[in-house]
């Protein structure tokens, strides 16, 4: 096995590794992180309206 071939193999290996990392990151973000953040954001929005109303504020319909 020449040195060049060896290099190519490790390149391929790190490449596979990198691809898996990217996929994992993408999966984490769109399946877990952003949905959770969205739900918190919507919940927070609801909470703010609730609090404004609780303290007697009027929300236009």
């Amino acid at each position, binding site marked *: 096995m020449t040195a060049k071939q060896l290099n190519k193999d490790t390149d391929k290996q790190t490449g596979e590794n990198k*691809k898996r990392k*990217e996929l994992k*990151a*993408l999966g984490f973000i769109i399946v877990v992180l952003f949905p959770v953040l969205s739900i918190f954001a919507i919940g927070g929005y*609801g*909470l703010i309206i609730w609090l404004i109303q609780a303290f007697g504020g009027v929300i236009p319909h």
Partner: protein
Amino acid sequence: MKWFKNLWQTLNKPAKYLTLGSISLTAFIMGVIFWGGFNTAIQATNTEEFCIGCHSMESKPYQELQKTVHWSNHSGVRATCPDCHVPHSWGRKIARKMEASSDVWGWFFKTVNTDEKFESKRLEMASREWGRFDRDDSLACKNCHNYDSMKWEDMSKLAQKQMKRAAEKDQSCVDCHKGIAHILPDMGTARAPELIAEVGTGPSKFDAGQDYFTALTKPLFFSSNGDVEAGTLNVATKVKVLESKDNRVKVAINGWRKKMGAGRVIYLEFGINMLTAQLTKDAARAEGVINGFEEKEDDMTGLKWQRVETELWTDAEYLITEQQPLWDYARDTFRSSCSVCHTQPDEAHFDANTWPGMFQGMIAFVNMDQDTQALVQKYLQQHSSTFVKEKH
């Protein structure tokens, strides 16, 4: 932490192997799935099946609804729970869903899981719901009902008159139509929760020799620890606290009584029928409970009145330091309750002895618990032409 660092390193650089196309496509698809899923889930909590999934909702409000016109009627349109109890606009709906977290709490801790618990909290829950309707002028009703679409000719003369007046002001429907879909809470026996919320329950420590005012109608006792009642002390009455012991205070009550029968009713002033306290017959006859002083004859009725003083015990609660908050609450209640149906007369339009008859004649038309009734009546008497000099 290392995991997070790795993740950040990957995210912080342009993707080397994933194409921009695949990333944006998956993001787009996930966005659609999330938003669709989220709204589907919200929608699922907005169905009647979901509402009556809890036993307490199924066994009480749902059963009560089935006896009303909102359940079945000649047009075949019916209202479901969320039609009236969840706002229809998106933002408010989300806010209401957040509020419902307290319902989950109540479900978890079994707040209203039995008939008795439900009934004892009915007024509180109904008041909260009325508050919601008040806040947006009964928008929940007006999602279906519309003043402009009402056919006046089909209404009775009285209904027309009331409805047209309401339409002019775009009045909130539940101002009058309380208890149309569920059983009305028993207002007559409840102890004025809204009044107490406004004026408070009073101090925990009392200064001897200081004047206090009753925030509710209170029981009177012969001693600091006995159970024998000596009568009742009317709301908004001024008493002087003499001493505190255990959970009771001894109060001095001054007033006038009519010299007839046992003379067990004590009034505020000579010749004026404003209730201060009503003693039991036993208390009124007992030696040394009521101390009588000078007597005067009322020319109007020919009755003899006697100035009296008595000292009795009452629970050390609902005695507040100022009278004005009571009058403020009574004035607001008088104005809002009475103006629902007619222009309310000025307080000073009648004198202190005419108001009780007037007031009692109208009381059947409004929902007012007994404490609030007594308070409003006393407010009217106190601000009648008898005491307020700019007369009619």
